[in-house]
């Protein structure tokens, strides 16, 4: 039976682009991949570009006058143009390629550690994050706080999985140098109210960093509309290859702030006594960058754009709404996070009675259903809701209502197994 929901994409066609979705597991069971918040699968269109790159154009970028070097450079820098357009960056030079979102976030924290005034984070200043951050947006700031003496503060969460901004004026103060928060939570699914936070941060002159790792793959992302100073995301969650991430930053900040990693490609001129640095983005790209991976990310951006980010968001909204409804029919199932599809991404976390998520995941896997279990690199959220871990199903442009049904059936089976 095919379930029709308003806003669904033509998943029959889309799924043909993803070779891995034909995979069979555990003696022939169809793979039902619901672990998209961890990483997405890659379409043929991206894999073809990777192959073509290595088979036809592979060379190190910049500094080369030979054909391959020029082609590789044009492809690499072309990928930067594509990413810049994808996020509506005012300038392509504001797009820095990193290895993943974690490096992007650490890059910002380290720039601020070594920055001159007015950006410098030191013992007199405060850093603000939230309780729903991914560890990659917690630990860099803990390290910065510990090493600089700055104070780390955070927004708490409401019972229904939203940011508690009721005390915003006490959390973000004149001492706040930087506010870093997640746009879409990878564990709760919550989409956070950017505007309120940005407005307060701007009032006190704090920089705003947005972790868009779970937003870039799933909805239109416009860095100008966000009004943030930095936006980080990661390629492997948005149909791109592993090993590539992005940091977008406002041009004047990239000019003013010091480099992070030192090495080839990021310099203007080097002597043994001192060095000067190239302008951004190169200043922040030390060493041979992930060239093929950037090119692959460019192809992923083309792929997503051809389908349309609005359409993908609509599809996921429909699937998420359906999933929340169906999951709530499962006895003893408790959704951790918003229980409506409003302001909500396509990751749905839940507990199932007192069956441990590890056991839930194992029994689902046996049926071919791939979900993630654990604290999803957001352990403070588990602490907040007094649970050891959750089971998380997360959807993407190729997910179908039928897969939601399979999950629900699978959970019934889990209950019977441990019943």
């Amino acid at each position, binding site marked *: 039976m095919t379930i029709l929901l308003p806003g669904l994409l033509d998943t029959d066609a889309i799924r043909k682009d993803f070779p891995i979705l034909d995979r069979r597991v555990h003696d022939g069971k169809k793979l039902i991949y619901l672990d998209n918040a961890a990483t997405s699968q890659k379409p043929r269109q991206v894999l073809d570009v990777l192959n073509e790159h290595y088979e036809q154009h592979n060379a190190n970028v910049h500094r080369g006058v030979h054909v391959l070097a020029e082609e590789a450079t044009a492809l690499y820098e072309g990928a930067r143009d594509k990413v810049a357009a994808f996020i509506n960056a005012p300038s392509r030079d504001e797009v820095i390629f990193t290895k993943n979102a974690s490096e992007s976030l650490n890059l910002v924290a380290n720039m601020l550690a070594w920055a001159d005034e007015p950006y410098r984070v030191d013992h007199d200043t405060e850093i603000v994050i939230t309780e729903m951050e991914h560890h990659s947006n917690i630990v860099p700031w*803990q390290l910065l706080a*510990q090493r600089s003496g700055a104070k780390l503060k955070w927004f708490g969460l409401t019972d229904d999985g939203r940011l508690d901004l009721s005390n915003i004026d006490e959390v973000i103060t004149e001492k706040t140098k930087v506010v870093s928060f997640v746009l879409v939570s990878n564990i709760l699914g919550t989409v956070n109210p950017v505007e309120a936070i940005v407005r307060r941060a701007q009032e006190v002159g704090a920089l705003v960093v947005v972790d868009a790792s779970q937003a870039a793959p799933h909805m239109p992302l416009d860095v100008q509309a966000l009004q943030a100073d930095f936006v980080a995301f990661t390629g492997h969650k948005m149909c791109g290859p592993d090993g590539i991430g992005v940091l977008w930053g406002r041009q004047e900040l990239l000019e003013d702030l010091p480099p992070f990693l030192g090495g080839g490609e990021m310099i203007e001129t080097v002597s043994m006594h001192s060095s000067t640095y190239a302008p951004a983005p190169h200043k922040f790209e030390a060493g041979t960058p992930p060239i093929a991976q950037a090119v692959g990310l460019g192809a992923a951006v083309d792929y997503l754009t051809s389908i349309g980010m609005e359409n993908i968001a609509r599809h996921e909204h429909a699937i998420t709404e359906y999933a929340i409804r169906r999951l709530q029919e499962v006895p003893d199932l408790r959704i951790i996070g918003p229980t409506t599809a409003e302001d909500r991404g396509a990751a749905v976390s839940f507990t199932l009675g007192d069956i441990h*998520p*590890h056991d839930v995941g*194992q029994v689902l896997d*046996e049926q071919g259903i791939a979900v993630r279990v654990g*604290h999803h690199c957001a352990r403070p959220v588990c602490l907040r809701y007094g649970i050891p*871990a959750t089971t998380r199903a997360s959807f993407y442009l190729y997910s179908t209502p039928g897969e939601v049904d399979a999950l629900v059936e699978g959970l019934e089976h889990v209950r019977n*197994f441990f019943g």
Partner: protein
Amino acid sequence: MKLDSMYQDVILDHYKHPHGRGLRDGDAEVHHVNPTCGDEITLRVRLSGETIEDVSYEGQGCSISQASASVLNELLVGKDLGEARRIQETFLELMQSKGRIEPDDAMEEVLEDAVAFAGVSKYPARVKCALLSWMAWKDATAQALGEGSENTARKTA
């Protein structure tokens, strides 16, 4: 079904009816965490000379890690240290066998209920769950004997 080889009835029994759970007096206490999944255990050992008087524990985790702690309590309490170490080593060997060891009678004699974990060794992600309490016990015993922690150095941010 392949799952049944992991979730043996013995394991599910221990999970639902754990032995010796709860924290009681001890000579040493350790707290171990499985960083890949967040399972945690606090475990205390009480010795009387070479004899293990008690192993008490508290923690959270999946059926495998919970059952494993329960089996450990059942197997080790009352044993002398030499024998307990042999049991621990045999269990470790079994768990690291990637499903390649089919426990024989000799092994079964040493491990008793713990042979039921043979099936778990085929699931790399779960081996650490099964070993969590055993590693904690080894560490706590070393501390109780004044040998210091074998825990690798971990720094607090």
